């Protein structure tokens, strides 16, 4: 900038444009709009989700624009960089003038210009410049005296020069904050990614097999990554989100999770998440022990460790596998580990058993019966700040998927403990074929000992043709003695019982129903269906007796509760046909191993950002709340001129001017008196 006047070269015009407020406001507007996009479109989702949502064409188009991670896209960072440039140039352009103004007193102001000021007046009389100067200094002004050539004296006073300082603070703050942010945005890594030296890993493979091109070593400038550590396990890397994949960041230390704690309020809301950690330095072997909580991170070696989430860390499980395809009433005990998968052979079928999360507590809000609230009740409710929550704990649950050789999977959601419904106890398992669907819940009735064995025995007996003869015989004998059938029909009745049992064993109620629909004329369906159900209801106590005696259990008389149990059994037995899997797993035991989700960050720009924030706040206070006031008193001998300006015209200045006017008039009197 050798020539400052009318420089029209391109670089100078660019300089003018970039340092202009028009440009800065334009940038701010674009920044704001871009930011909105990032809040409306969910960021950093797995790419298939986007492809599914937008279709292939728009998915690729948006990917090209970097809309899946707007705030780290090249163009967004470019805008930020331009904002830094623009603000810097603004400071460079206006700074020198502001400094000059801050320092100067404008004591050479001419009488005409002073007279033209909005706050200007003549005061008749004479006062002592030294006394006026003293008074002004006492009021916080700094004063400069200037003797004009015509002999008149000018007192030029000012205060609140810090207002201009505020401008510097606020604008330098923006630059400092942006630099800090860009530092933490890790520009070198972005460049390495663009250049292809670093390539995100997209496969789901063990961490140790991730190739070097997707690994970052410990001297990486800044990072923010996550890792899940099970109790008693360690981690020495974290995973960083990178576009469609992830990067593996080496840590300078090893984090070991000793124990994870979770605590709940009485209403089931989470109260505490905490991890007992041991952090061992790789180089020195020095170990640091600490407990982190949400809001209480641990900082080791410039890396902050946060409590981010929690989950199952792979808990050993014991289960009973019940054959439901060919029920035999006897379970096969198996072992497993949650969050892991294992092969499961069942007869000639091979499955993959994929365990999901073990949840030890399932706290359910059962709500309350919505009564008819009258006005009085509503007023009472609205006064009440404490509401007793009706919650119950459904106990431990496990999810698992059973995947066949074709890759088709059914997902199960199983509760370990008995769950009471309508006063009776059930073992409950939900099943679904697709992830998006709701679970269909299967309720297996439990016996007095809260065990599922009796149901399974019954279910096996219902499906065992070898027992049908005896069952049919005993049922017919009972029906005969009760007078429900005549002796001539015994044979036919036995055949009916066997036929109904076989049909039911084949496909439950739906099998009977489809038979009726196929073979029975419409007007008789109702009656036939009633008959079948009566036969089943009459047969099932006999089935239980037969099954019990087979298993060596003493038969018990059928009372109301037992009868409900038997009806539930028929419903559950029928529903098992729709399970879509030959095996049902029952959780019998577990040893909980929790996992803690840790977030580890290194952000060297943080202090810079905080410094910038402090500067910004100070700057704003100075700009808005320090009023820059300038005041002139010109002593012409018999009369004086008082003039005032402020950087902002408002009623404060009117008030100040009134005050100064009055004070000056008083000092006229004072100098006369002395």
């Amino acid at each position: 900038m050798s020539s400052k006047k009318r420089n029209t070269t391109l670089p100078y015009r660019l300089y003018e444009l970039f340092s202009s407020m028009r440009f800065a406001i334009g940038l701010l507007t674009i920044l704001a709009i871009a930011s909105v996009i990032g809040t409306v479109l969910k960021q950093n989702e797995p790419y298939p989700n986007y492809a599914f949502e937008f279709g292939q064409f728009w998915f690729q188009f948006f990917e090209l624009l970097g809309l899946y991670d707007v705030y780290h896209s090249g163009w967004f960072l470019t805008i930020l960089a331009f904002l830094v440039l623009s603000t810097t140039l603004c400071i460079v352009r206006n700074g020198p003038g502001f400094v000059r103004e801050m320092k100067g007193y404008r004591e050479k102001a001419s009488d005409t210009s002073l007279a033209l000021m909005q706050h200007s007046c003549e005061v008749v009389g004479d006062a002592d410049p030294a006394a006026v100067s003293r008074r002004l200094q006492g009021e916080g002004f700094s004063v400069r005296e200037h003797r004009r050539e015509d002999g008149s004296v000018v007192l030029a006073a000012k205060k609140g020069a810090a207002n201009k300082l505020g401008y510097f603070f606020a604008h330098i703050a923006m630059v400092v904050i942006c630099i800090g942010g860009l530092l933490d945005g890790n520009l070198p890594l972005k460049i390495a990614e663009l250049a292809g030296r670093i390539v995100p890993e997209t496969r789901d493979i063990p961490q140790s097999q991730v190739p070097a091109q997707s690994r970052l070593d410990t001297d990486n400038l800044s990072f923010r990554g996550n890792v899940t550590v099970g109790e008693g396990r360690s981690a020495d890397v974290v995973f960083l989100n990178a576009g469609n994949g992830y990067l593996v960041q080496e840590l300078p230390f090893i984090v070991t999770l000793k124990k994870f704690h979770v605590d709940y309020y009485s209403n089931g809301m989470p109260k505490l998440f905490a991890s007992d950690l041991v952090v061992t330095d790789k180089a020195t072997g020095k170990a640091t022990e600490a407990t982190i909580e949400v809001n209480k991170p641990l900082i080791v070696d410039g890396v902050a460790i946060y409590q981010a989430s929690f989950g199952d860390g792979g808990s050993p499980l014991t289960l009973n596998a019940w054959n439901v395809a060919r029920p035999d009433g006897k379970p096969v005990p198996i072992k497993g580990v949650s969050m892991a998968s294992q092969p499961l052979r069942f007869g000639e079928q091979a499955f993959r058993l994929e365990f999901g999360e073990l949840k030890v507590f399932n706290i359910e809000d059962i709500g309350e019966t919505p009564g008819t609230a009258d006005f009085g009740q509503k007023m009472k409710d609205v006064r009440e700040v404490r509401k007793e929550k009706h919650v119950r704990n459904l106990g431990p649950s496990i999810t698992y998927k059973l995947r066949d050789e074709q890759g088709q999977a059914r997902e199960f959601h199983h509760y370990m403990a008995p769950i009471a419904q309508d006063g009776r106890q059930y073992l409950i398992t939900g099943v679904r074929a697709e992830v998006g669907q709701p679970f269909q819940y299967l309720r297996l009735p439990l016996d007095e000992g809260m065990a599922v064995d009796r149901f399974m025995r019954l279910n096996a007996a219902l499906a065992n043709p070898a027992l049908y003869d005896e069952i049919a015989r005993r049922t017919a004998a009972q029906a005969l003695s009760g007078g429900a059938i005549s002796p001539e029909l015994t044979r036919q009745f036995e055949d009916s019982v066997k036929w109904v049992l076989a049909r039911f064993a084949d496909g439950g109620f739906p099998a009977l129903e489809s038979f009726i629909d196929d073979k029975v004329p419409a007007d008789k369906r109702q009656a036939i269906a009633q008959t079948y159900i009566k036969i089943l209801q009459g047969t099932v106590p006999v089935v239980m007796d037969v099954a019990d005696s087979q298993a060596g259990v003493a038969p018990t008389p059928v009372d109301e509760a037992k009868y409900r149990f038997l009806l539930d059994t028929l419903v559950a037995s029928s529903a098992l046909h729709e399970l879509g899997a030959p095996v049902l797993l029952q959780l019998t035991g577990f040893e909980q191993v929790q996992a803690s989700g840790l977030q580890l960050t290194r952000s060297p720009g943080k202090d810079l950002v905080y410094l910038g924030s402090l500067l910004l706040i100070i700057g704003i206070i100075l700009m808005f709340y320090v009023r820059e006031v300038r005041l002139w008193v010109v002593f012409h001998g018999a009369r004086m001129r008082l003039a005032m300006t402020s950087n902002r015209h408002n009623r404060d200045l009117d008030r100040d001017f009134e005050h100064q006017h009055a004070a000056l008039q008083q000092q006229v009197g004072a100098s006369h008196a002395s």
Partner: protein
Amino acid sequence: MQASHSLHLSPRASWLKPGPLDWAYAVVVLIACAVAFWQYDHFMDVYEEAILAGSALGLIGLGWFWKDWRWYFPLSGLVSLAAIGIYDHELARAQEAFWLKYLLSSQSSIMWMCTLFVLATGMYWAGVLARSALLQKMGSGLTWAASVMGLAGLFTRWYESYLIGPDIGHIPVSNLYEVFVLFCLITALMYLYYEARFAARQMGAFVLLIISAAVAFIVWYAFDRQAHEIQPLIPALQSWWMKIHVPANFVGYGAFAIAAMLGIAELMVMRGWLADRLPSPEVLDEVMYKAIAIGFLFFTIATVLGAMWAADAWGGYWSWDPKETWALIVWLNYAAWLHVRLVKGWRGKPLAWWAVVGLFVTTFAFVGVNMFLSGLHSYGGL
């Protein structure tokens, strides 16, 4: 009365020259804070002790700066202390003891606040339409009364939360219901300050409208959704940062709301609607500027505090979470507003429109983000 008083103050800031009443007020505040410290120190960590000390100084400063505060704050405290006394460590008394049931329990206080704000709105409008200074003055009185009940209600709610359980107790700024009460309160108080400072009570007709809208939300939220029930704090909110981040934010929101309502008033006056009944556009313009300036300052502080809290709770001072991003948008909006006013010298219509539009942006950042966008700030889980 306050207006004429403050206009004749000497140019040196009056709060630097405390009088006997100021000192008496300061002693009251110090005693209150000392008692709070002595009674409840075992609930506080070192940061909360610092916040208590800072609050004492801040409250003294505020009382010296704004004289009305010297009676308002102790009176609200007394009302709340009366409630606490009647409670006698027994939350169930809220439904039994007469005074708690009908006036002093936190919910009764807050419902009174709501009622009084609505009455004040009506009174201000009657005052404007009838050109009656008396009615407008009554509007002021009702607004003051509502503010006393509001602050007392929040204090009492704070106490009640500890009656539910020592592990559940927390400052009542933790959910949408509580911050809406805070919003009404802060907006009203800031407005009362400007009303006195600029001797322009007609502004109340506009400012109280937005407060009444918030009141409508509060009433619906409590009666229909039972949102007034005190919930314990999830781990992410268990932090001393909440005590400073949330109130600072609501000074910002309240100020922006005032600015928008004055923007509407200014636009109406410029069109000649009610022009002879409302303050001049210049006065409205100046109050609007003052509100945005103080709002911007506090919003900046709140956002910085929020960032520092996020650095403790979420693992980074800036995660481009929807709430953070919208806070930035609000901030950019008012930064631009201030730039064009101070640097370009814009005045009048465009700025008034801009302030009105700004309220929509602010409202989206305040409620819209929670309703429509999911993020860390919605506290859906850990």
